[in-house]
């Protein structure tokens, strides 16, 4: 290398350190509500710095294609980010994730064209293609399930484990062949791509909708690891640092989600939820209630906790829930929103929806905070949540969700359950809560039900 080139390379790597600093600091600030917005901005500036300084690199010979491609990507990204409704956020995160994963796959692919790759480099190229491919198709399947383009339940078939095992062995074999004989025209290379894409589909289809928070955060982690592997493939430090930061962050979130369901990651990934239905059958009488009576109870209450679930997102009921909350507060009642870590379809899903409806975040409280004082809650209003408030998780050892920590709404003085009908929840598990002595069922669309309670308040 000529001296100017070395100096330029040093400038680029030095600037990458600044970018890495901005990412790290940005992520740290994202962890506190007060500073989160600035943290995200900081991390975006880090990205801009990294991109701009990379454009100076001596390796880049032509800019024409790059600029066109960058503009196309930026416009698509900006438009979708702007237009999508807050309720479809899980799908959108899955799609963005998928496009990042596919980008890493393609970067790995392109790296195979450069000459003189060591075996270690080819191995990392293989990893970039594998993880990128799994992230891409896995995210697509997750998107399909979340947006209900395809059935959102677990898709399980008899020989699934055998098929996956064979697939994994085949991947290891073609990966090894590629490392021994790296060539972009060999059939092994194309087999790596195809098998990786197929593997991504196979790992996500057996996972049911209620387990989606785990899958989304795991795929998020994968997209970071794919970028990291691509970084090894092209010897680029910023890819490795940023990619592994995201990889680790995603794993932590995945772990939090798994703990919130009292299941191991392996259990989520390999056993279709609801496949075993041996739980004790619950029988009893449900006590329906009408909006007028619900209003009378709420009006007399001095402490109300809303417990939202995925059903609130489906019914788009977050705004009316906030309105009811404000009416109750004006009535001298203490209102809180108790949110289970895995309520909804992605980590923090309910928090985002309630924030959209202008609920201040200090009113959103976590499971560990509400449970010790649940006895003092006059009315717990369960809106479209099921498994996360199912007492069977606490009491029935035969229940598939036994051991999962829940919000103990059944211990509140009164429980209202807003529910469309008596169908069982996503996991297909019966819920004894519905038959409890202190439970009243408010049947119908959650949004319509709450609106009629609000109407009662206003008359």
């Amino acid at each position, binding site marked *: 290398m000529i001296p100017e080139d070395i100096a330029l390379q040093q400038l680029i790597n030095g600037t990458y350190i600044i970018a890495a600093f901005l*990412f790290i600091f940005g992520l*740290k600030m*994202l*962890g506190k*509500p*007060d500073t*989160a*917005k600035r943290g*995200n901005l900081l991390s975006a500036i880090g*990205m801009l710095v*990294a*991109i701009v300084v990379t454009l100076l*690199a001596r*390796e*880049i010979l032509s800019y024409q*294609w*790059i600029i066109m*491609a960058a503009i196309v*990507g930026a416009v698509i*990204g*900006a438009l979708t*980010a*702007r237009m999508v409704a807050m309720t479809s*956020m899980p799908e959108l*995160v899955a799609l*963005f*994730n998928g*496009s*990042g994963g596919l*980008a*890493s796959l*393609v*970067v790995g*692919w*392109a790296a195979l064209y450069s000459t003189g790759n060591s075996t270690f480099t080819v191995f990392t190229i293989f990893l970039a293609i594998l993880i990128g491919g799994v992230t891409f198709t896995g995210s697509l399947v997750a998107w399909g399930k979340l947006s209900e383009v395809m059935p959102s339940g677990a898709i399980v078939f008899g020989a699934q484990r055998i098929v996956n095992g064979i697939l994994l062995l085949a991947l290891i074999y073609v990966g090894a062949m590629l490392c021994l004989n790296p060539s972009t025209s060999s059939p092994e290379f194309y087999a790596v791509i195809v098998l990786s894409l197929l593997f991504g589909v196979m790992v996500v289809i057996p996972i049911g909708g209620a387990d989606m928070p785990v899958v989304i955060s795991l795929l*998020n982690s994968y*997209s970071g690891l794919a*970028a990291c592997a*691509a970084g090894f493939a*092209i*010897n*680029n430090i910023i890819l*490795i640092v940023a*990619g*592994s*930061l*995201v990889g*680790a*962050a995603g794993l*932590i*979130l995945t772990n*939090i989600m798994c703990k919130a369901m009292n299941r191991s990651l392996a259990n989520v990934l390999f056993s279709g939820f609801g496949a075993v239905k041996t739980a004790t059958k619950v029988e009893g009488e449900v006590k329906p209630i009408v909006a007028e009576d619900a209003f009378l109870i709420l009006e007399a209450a001095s402490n109300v906790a809303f417990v939202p679930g995925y059903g609130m997102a489906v019914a788009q009921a977050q705004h009316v829930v906030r309105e009811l909350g404000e009416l109750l507060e004006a009535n001298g009642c203490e209102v809180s929103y108790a949110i289970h870590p895995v309520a909804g379809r*992605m*980590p*923090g899903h309910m*928090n*985002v929806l309630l*924030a959209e409806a*202008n609920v*201040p975040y200090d009113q959103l409280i976590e499971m560990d905070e509400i449970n010790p004082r649940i006895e003092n809650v006059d009315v717990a209003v369960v809106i479209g949540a099921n498994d996360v408030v199912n007492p069977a998780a606490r009491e029935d050892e035969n229940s598939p969700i036994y051991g999962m920590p829940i919000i103990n709404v059944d211990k509140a003085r009164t429980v209202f359950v807003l529910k469309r009908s008596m169908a069982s929840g996503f996991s297909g598990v019966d819920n004894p809560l519905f038959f409890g002595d202190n439970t009243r069922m408010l049947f119908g669309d959650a949004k319509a039900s709450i609106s009629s309670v609000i109407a009662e308040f206003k008359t």
Partner: protein
Amino acid sequence: MEAVFLTFILMLSIFLGFELIAKVPATLHTPLMSGANAISGITVVGALLSAGSGHGEISGLLGAVAVALAMINVVGGYMVTDRMLAMFKKKETPDASTGGKR
């Protein structure tokens, strides 16, 4: 040696990632995830290098495709995170009705 050096960096970054995220409140899980997702679009840097590298036409074309895909991830990810975070508000105190909400 290079491989060892890079792996060393990998290990430290992973530990750093664990430390950074471990104590984040549940309220911020979604923005955190989508913000991290945007960072994973860093692969755009690799895409830029391969798009302009002149290792041949196919490599350049692949690079350009990767640039577009990664840019969707980067721009979309940051913008949507920003949009979400703009909605998170503290309870307004009665005397601070104008401004100072954040």
